[in-house]
């Protein structure tokens, strides 16, 4: 799993599962340093519209980011919304996985769970939407 893919899945994980696993990561006494405290701010959504393929700034999306150093490896996370604790926990998990520490496999499992959840959600959503697809009948 690429680091970017893992970050994307951790950005979608539930707050409780992130914090629980991050607590487990640092329970062995590994040194943690917060490089960038969890900070709430905006990510400006820049869109390339499809007509003339020109860029414009649509607006801002609320986000929270954090950066840590764990056992000498840097971890970074950004998530939408303003949950500081979840962003900090995701950064810890990114660092844990980056240096291949003991909880790496559990982080991979968490990411798999998030991906499965997304897949289930999409299937459920389509099951609700599909009946609203228009089927035309030819009148002859």
């Amino acid at each position, binding site marked *: 799993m690429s680091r970017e893919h893992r970050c994307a899945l951790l950005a979608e994980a539930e707050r409780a599962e992130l914090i629980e696993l991050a607590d487990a990561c640092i329970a062995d006494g590994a040194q943690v340093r917060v490089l960038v405290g969890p900070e709430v*701010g905006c990510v400006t959504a820049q869109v390339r519209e499809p007509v003339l393929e*020109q860029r414009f700034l*649509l607006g801002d999306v609320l986000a929270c980011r954090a950066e840590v150093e764990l056992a000498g490896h840097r971890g970074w996370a950004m998530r939408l*919304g303003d949950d500081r604790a979840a962003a900090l926990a995701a950064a810890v998990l990114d660092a844990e996985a980056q240096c291949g520490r003991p909880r790496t496999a559990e982080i991979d499992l968490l990411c798999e769970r998030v991906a499965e959840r997304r897949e289930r959600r999409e299937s459920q959503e389509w099951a609700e939407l599909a009946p609203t697809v228009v089927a035309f009948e030819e009148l002859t």
Partner: protein
Amino acid sequence: MGYSGARGGLEAILAAEDLVRRKRDHAPAPWSSTEQITARFRLAVDRVMGEAGLYDEPTAADAFRQAEGDTLEASHLLRAQRSTLPRLAVSEPVDPGEMTVIRRIVPAFREPDGPQLLGRTSDYTGRLLERPDGRPEPDQEDHAGTSSAERTEEQRSPRRFMDLLRKMELLAEGRTTDDPEPHDITRKPARPPADRSAVLAAMARAESGALVALWYRSILGPDGDVHEITLGELRHGRLPLRVRHPHTGNPVAVGEFRVTEAEAIEDLDGADEDRTRFDIGYGLCFGHNERKAIAMANLDIANRRFGRSGPLEQLLLLTIDGLDSGGFLEHLKLPHYVTFRSMVERKQAMRAAAEAGEDPPARAAEPAGKDCR
């Protein structure tokens, strides 16, 4: 009537504020939670996010509750909140073609690539007021299992109708190789003449009613900037937001946000235009707000055609921001005692002069118009 300085009103202001707080927060009715507002009043929440220019449903819902349902006031609160926040990043350019559609209709063509997906809408049913007697019964049905429809890429992210027109060589080509930096209207106000990026950004966070009114005026009013009205495509769906990972330099998705997108087809008929082709106007705004996206798309193409030859560009840049117009309107409620007293005294002086048989003073020209601010 002479002038006398006066002060006061602080106690009245505090009492009025307290009255708002008590009646709102302690009304004899159940508390509206943030989750309840996002679930029950989603279109209002979406409208607030769009007009404020900040996407976050819970924050917009809190603003909506504090503003007692006044969407413009809620947008004001949300935009003020946004102004306190740092900019963490500018996203990688979002490609709207990546949208996972929740609703997608192509009114211009019966069978486009991909589905005519009505989604959650009451557009095609009669709107009658329902007065339910209490809460509805819980929904017992398992909707997840009611459809066996296969989920494909074509259904969830269909090709846009515009691509088909382009393939048929029916679209005027306006794409260029240059890629100018977009104008940031949150940092630098846009004034005519402005880049298209500034106009699109201004429309994206315009007050919805103002934008629709301007669009309608362009059709039926004296301006005539919008001619043929054909809606090519309308979508509501989710787009991924990606930023550069600070360690690897690669794009990373940090989440999704919902938008409404519209494409308006314009039948070119100008003497200097390619009359064998169409052009397309584009609209995109936060959340689910179809009226706004459609008006925006029509005004985009109208502005490209006529913005520099008439007042349209100026109207789009300077008059559709809800906070600007609403703020100006609200200021009328502040004391204007001195201004009005001077007006009264002027009238009285003119009447006295007329009664004394004097000619009225010559009226000075006002070449720049009245200064009403």
